[in-house]
């Protein structure tokens, strides 16, 4: 039977496997949220955590750039109230408190194709992923050269390497793709995995959100 890992569970799984993730914890109430935010360091983001919600932006379940405990408490109350009134049928696990991601939003994905077996995908991420369809594919396992070519094949490559639009650690992305490829080789039971967005800056590459289907 298929199993779906979302939000905090997916992030925890990746963290355990040595994939860099944005520091995150699940808060059950606003006190917990405030103290977690202090520990992580401001600014933070809050995200509704529910097994029934896939696209959190569409349900208004995200608040970003929260700079103090007070802002965190207020945001906690807002997102949970909206969620309960808009989606009374959906289960609320809590609210994820997460370090704020910085840099380019990328998507890294993997899936088991009927013909090719496991394939790796890389592309422009965030809310533009579906519209832009700026992606490249390789069969897993990938080599360093494959990873470099996956990056170069993107239409947004010019933007990624342009120092004026904020430098991105391109060799770091190569290593990250190799790491994801190795993770899928190790966990053949993963049917589909989306790491989206993955924030890439000059110094960090960190997964912000993930969905993993295990079968």
């Amino acid at each position: 039977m298929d199993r779906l890992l979302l939000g905090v569970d997916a992030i925890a799984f990746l963290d355990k496997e040595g994939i860099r993730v944005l520091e995150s914890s699940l808060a059950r109430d606003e006190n917990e949220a405030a103290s977690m935010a202090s520990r992580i360091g401001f600014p933070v983001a809050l995200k509704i955590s529910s097994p029934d919600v896939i696209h959190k932006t569409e349900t208004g379940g995200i608040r970003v750039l929260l700079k103090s405990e007070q802002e965190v408490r207020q945001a906690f109350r807002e997102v949970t109230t909206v969620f309960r009134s808009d989606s009374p049928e959906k289960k609320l696990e809590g609210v994820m408190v997460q370090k704020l991601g910085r840099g380019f939003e990328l998507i890294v994905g993997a899936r088991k194709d009927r013909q090719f077996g496991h394939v790796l995908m890389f592309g422009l991420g965030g809310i533009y992923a579906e519209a832009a369809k700026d992606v490249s594919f390789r069969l897993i396992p990938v080599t360093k050269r494959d990873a470099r070519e996956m990056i170069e094949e993107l239409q947004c490559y010019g933007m990624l390497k342009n120092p004026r639009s904020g430098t991105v650690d391109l060799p770091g992305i190569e290593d990250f793709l190799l790491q994801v490829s190795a993770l899928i080789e190790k966990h053949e039971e993963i049917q589909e995995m989306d790491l989206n967005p993955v924030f890439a800056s000059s110094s960090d590459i960190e997964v912000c959100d993930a969905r993993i289907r295990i079968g």
Partner: protein
Amino acid sequence: MTNAKLKDLFCPESVAVVGASNSFDKLGYHVMKSLVQGNYGGRIFPVNPKAQQVWGINTHPALSEIREAVDLAVIAVPAPFVPEVLHECGRKRVKGVVMITAGFKEIEDAKGQALENELGSIARQYDLPIIGPNTFGFVNRTFGVNASFTPEFSLLEKGGVALISQSGGMCHLCGFLAMEQRMGVSKLMSLGNRLNVGFPELLKHLVEDDEQTRVITLYIEGLDDPRDLLDTAKSLRGRKHIIAYKAGKSEKGDSASRFHTGSLAGDYQIWKGALRQAGILEVTSAEELIDTAKVLDKCPPAKGPRIAVLSGQAGPGMIAADAVEKTGLKLARFSEKTQEEINRLLPPIAIRTNPVDMGPSWYDTKNILDILKAALEDEGTDGIIFIAMFASANVHLAKGMADYLNSMDHFKKPVVGVFTAPPGIWDNEIRAMDGQKGLSIVPTPERAAAVLANLWKANLLFG
């Protein structure tokens, strides 16, 4: 399927045609025509229980009645008879089979699949390599055998390009384009249903065991196990150029998937990445396939993207320059020495920087080829587009170039020519020049730029 078995299949000393016929509406008629009119040098054994002679050659009532050894059997009898014929082939120790007969797994009726499975087990029993079923056959221009139902393929020029296709129709399209474009072919075939000889086996044979083949082109529709082909190509990387044209580009990703990766992964998107990963150069049209294969076969590699455009007329040169930049190549910047040499050869009445307008040298072929030499010697150029349009006043240009070309050394960089004239006027000269010294000729400046871009890509894929 070992390489040695395929070599025997493709280089038969004798061929039996089971289903050879004198009636035009039978494929066995056309296979016989291909062998006889294609000047096949080995023995031909038509097998037909009714006719005395087919195409003037005495027949045998059955394969088993032939006393001499038979290397290759071409089978063109109806599907229900094929299993028995295949047993006969096995007992007679035939080395290979071309199975033209169709009506197996490709048909809707489930009996087709069952019959094909039966063929598979008979072939295994005798360890018999089979091209097909459901193929038009193969042509080996190097060895001189046309074992197909299309006699006209014997007109293909001999050369270093192998055309391997999943579809017979695409092989005909590319084969005829190859004739039109004077592309030299080593082998041409459709693999049909790929009973036991598929792309991976062919690739191994062509790379490891076929010295005349320098460039391999694959037309692929769909494969059950694409990794087999891709892994084979990867293991042979850097030995011969492999070009692929993949059909079926429409996106049919699983739109129901809640995952981006699922919805973004059209089948073709994965193919595209996987081909590059395996070191295979992808092309997206039949003419690009022919141009690229032809030029890769005849020209030295393009080791970089810097292109010089030398044109007998300014306009086509400008078009070429535009196309160069559009395809990701760059216009070369001539060194001072090269520029001085070009300035010496051309009066200051035309553009002498890249693209060079050689118009003033219309009547001086030596000058034109000296400009080519200067551009070739420049360390800042990686390839040349060399253009001349016919005009009544320069009718002697092509002959002069063809003669002068003979005295030149072999080029160390690719030179792609575009020499266009009304039909019948420069035909002989173009034929004489095409493929000589590292010069290859294509129809238009745009195609010249596209093919040079592919030469550069192919060079990167090799490493």
